[in-house]
């Protein structure tokens, strides 16, 4: 994405713009259409990957203005990257849409709902760790308080939100299995740094503890965790400058720690970490550094699979796995979590569907109608498997699915893979 100053068509100069090279890779074959959740729900070409790429290309070729219409459709996109998996031409869709949003942002065309929430989150809350902690801890503190008792007075819909709140859950039911496994002792334990992250530590701290515990069982030597924010929410919102600063700080801290691996337990953060290089121009020394860093980033499931650690207990309930988009599509990680779950279950059932559940960062707040339709479809698939335990690798999906399951009155527990592995190892 260099030499953007020459010929950016109707894009603003001086702001990252969707690259001509990336846009031209699209042969408008349409093979991505049915992979796109928003196209499947809305049936409109403007809400398909092909349509969005076409619009971005038309702006570049001065056939269309950079308008509110385009802004709307770029923000209806979930950024789930399913189109990248489907596209045979290798269109770098994620990169394009993020640059497109940066343009929309710079032109002041960001849809209103987004603007407000994003301002609140990215400008007010996240930059202040104390506030982040306070805001996201609220639901947890509430859940542990006597106020809870009043919850049954809430209307049904709100009760579902309430039920999804992070709170101490019953331990995951497991039984001893006659399998040989157990913690791994390694001669030279690889050093790893875990990401506890911004929202995760405040809202779901027990998942971070489970992550650390399970990494130790897998034979990693943990250096103190990185507790800052990775900047993913900023990038998705088109705020690249802020994200660059966050990236530099994180990489710097990792280098100083001397760790070999950087482990993330959140699909969205992991994808962002692996794509840091895209934030920096190729002639910026940080570009190379970010690339090197990316090769050391592991998703928790990769770190566990690599270690060869094997479960000693098996899960009691039939289990299914929900592919988080930023694992399956953005990081192409599908096999590791499945093999881990098969290792600790006698009854693993495939969901047979990797469509986005609708959570997608703050999407479920900005586009609730589409998000709840996708959630409905996902829950139906889960129901069809008959599984009582759903495992996923992303906190956003976790909360979204929990709320949906509660609202629907389903008898399923939704858990993060860290907890499940911690209970069975």
């Amino acid at each position, binding site marked *: 994405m260099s030499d953007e100053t020459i010929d950016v068509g109707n894009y603003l100069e001086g702001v990252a713009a969707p690259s001509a090279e990336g846009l*031209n*890779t*699209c*042969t*408008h*074959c*349409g*093979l*991505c*259409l*049915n*992979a796109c959740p928003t*196209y499947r729900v809305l*049936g*409109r*070409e*403007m809400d398909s990957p092909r*349509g969005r790429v*076409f*619009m971005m290309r*038309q702006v570049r070729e001065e*056939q*269309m203005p950079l*308008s509110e*219409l*385009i802004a709307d459709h770029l923000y209806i996109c979930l950024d789930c990257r399913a189109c990248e998996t*489907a*596209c*045979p*031409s*290798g*269109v770098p869709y994620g990169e394009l849409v993020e640059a497109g949003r940066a343009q929309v942002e710079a032109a002041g065309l960001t849809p209103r709902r987004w603007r407000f929430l994003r301002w609140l989150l990215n400008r007010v809350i996240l930059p202040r760790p104390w506030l982040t902690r306070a805001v996201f801890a609220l639901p947890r503190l509430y859940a542990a308080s006597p106020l809870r008792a009043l919850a049954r007075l809430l209307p049904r819909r709100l009760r579902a939100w309430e039920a999804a709140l992070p709170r101490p859950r019953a331990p995951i039911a497991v039984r001893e299995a006659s399998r040989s496994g157990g913690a791994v002792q390694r001669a030279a334990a690889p050093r790893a740094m875990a990401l506890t992250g911004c929202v995760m530590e405040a809202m779901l701290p027990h998942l971070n503890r489970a992550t650390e515990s399970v990494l130790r069982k897998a034979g990693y030597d943990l250096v103190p965790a990185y507790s800052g924010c990775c900047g993913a929410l900023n990038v998705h919102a088109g705020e690249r400058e802020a994200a660059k600063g966050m990236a530099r700080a994180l990489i710097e801290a990792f280098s100083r720690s001397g760790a070999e691996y950087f482990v993330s337990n959140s699909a969205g953060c992991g994808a962002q970490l692996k794509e840091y290089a895209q934030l920096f121009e190729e002639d910026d020394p940080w570009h190379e550094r970010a690339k090197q860093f990316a090769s050391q980033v592991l998703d928790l499931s990769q770190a566990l699979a690599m270690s060869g650690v094997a479960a000693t207990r098996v899960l009691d309930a039939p289990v299914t796995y929900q592919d988080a988009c930023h694992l399956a599509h953005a990081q192409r990680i599908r096999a590791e979590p499945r093999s881990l779950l098969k290792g600790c279950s006698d009854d693993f059932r495939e969901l*047979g569907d990797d469509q986005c559940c609708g959570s997608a960062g703050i999407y479920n707040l900005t586009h609730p109608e589409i998000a709840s339709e996708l959630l409905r479809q996902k829950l139906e698939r889960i129901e069809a498997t008959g599984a009582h335990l759903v495992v996923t690798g992303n906190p956003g999906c976790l909360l979204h699915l929990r709320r949906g399951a509660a609202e629907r009155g389903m008898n399923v527990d939704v858990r993060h893979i860290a907890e499940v592995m911690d209970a069975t190892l």
Partner: protein
Amino acid sequence: MSEQPSSFIERLRTIVGDDGLFSEPQQLRLYMYDGSIDRALPIAVALPRTAEQVAGVVRLCHEEGVFLTPRGAGTGLSGGSIPLCGGVVLSTARMKAVLAVDTENQTVTVQPGLVNLDLTKHVAPLGFQYVPDPSSQGACTIGGNVAENSGGPHTLTGGVTTNHVLELELVLADGERVRIGSPAPDPPGPDFVGVVCGSEGTIAVVTQILCRIVRKTECVRTMLAAFDSCRAASEAVSAVIASGIVPTAMEMMDHPALSAIEAFSHAGYPVDAGAVLLLELEALREEVEDAAPRVVEICRANGASEVRVAQNDEEREALWKGRKKAFGAMGRIGPSYYVQDGVIPRTRLPEVLERVEQAARKVGLRVANVFHAGDGNLHPLILFDDHDPDQAKRAIAAGEEILRACVEAGGSITGEHGVGMEKRDYMVLQFPKATLAAFTAFRDACDPGHTLNPYKLLPSGLGCAEGGKRQKTMAQMQELAERNAAVGDAY
């Protein structure tokens, strides 16, 4: 006209609802393309949800003399869903329900916008499959498949769409709703279903389809054979068929295609081979176990340097993924491609492939070949830069030359991608005047007002009679489109 200027659009809106109609110029731009290289703007896009709404839209267009072009997923490769002369685009994207599954009679009733692969996924847990599997099956619709009479790698033994459609519910050009065909196979009387299959939206809009499904085959074996040249691979194809074995699929990819495909699929295709054959056997277990080693042997005898048999479903899917996404993968070696779809007798493969190569070389462009070798259905992909009008023109010229070669070799100008606007004027290469006149008369009887997908499929007297003069026709089309746009403005 006594009506208010926008009343046509408003009347459309009352039929499909506010949320089912687009008429903003910027929105319309997204319906000017499909998977082919042509483009044209509609005056409105309607997204009906029910057959009644479809009938309402068709009737209104008929009464007002406004052109109407049906659209499925817009993966077509011959411009079929492009609103050539403006008018209304009717998209079936919101009509994608599976209405009924009848495993006893082995049929499924579906809406036209259902995606081909979603149909297969729907019946797979019951142990069934829907046979026609165009390479675009992950996105293209059953309605579009019917309109194009689509085939796929499994056409060789499975037949094309028309062989798997029993009954259709249609909206005729004047908005009347009818049902043709019958749930029982081979009903008496003329084969109207057969006529609608392949009619490319020019005689009716399909609103419901009763498809045949079959039990999944017991045993599938997929293999890949690498050869030095297309000639050697073609000879192997003929030798396999001569041996009495009929693989369900025999797909060929030449050297330029292989590198692009491998870059996408990482299926382990041998990128340095001159040509690769993908073969699939499907039958009862004993039959497959018996035939597979013989196929391997025949390939070896015909010069295969390597034959690989997929050991499990994952390997099998990986091999197919490369083939199925081959066209799209061309984006990795050229900005755009122009794909042809000629059919030739299998035995003439080597010489026609040479003429393909020559045709491209003559105009200074590159060509890659990915095709259904078993039934001689060629898909030369002429690579060009669509930003360069001169290259586009040269690509079209090479395409025409290739079709000529196919017809001269005793073949036809389209196997499965349809005629659309792209090959409309080449119909004269293939059919005698009298035959074309009969086609036209039939179509006129079905759509006297010429509102349904006008100027597609059949040469329409617009300077086409004397031969494939596409350029001239395009100019006339332009004129027509402008006239129609003016009509659109007037509404």
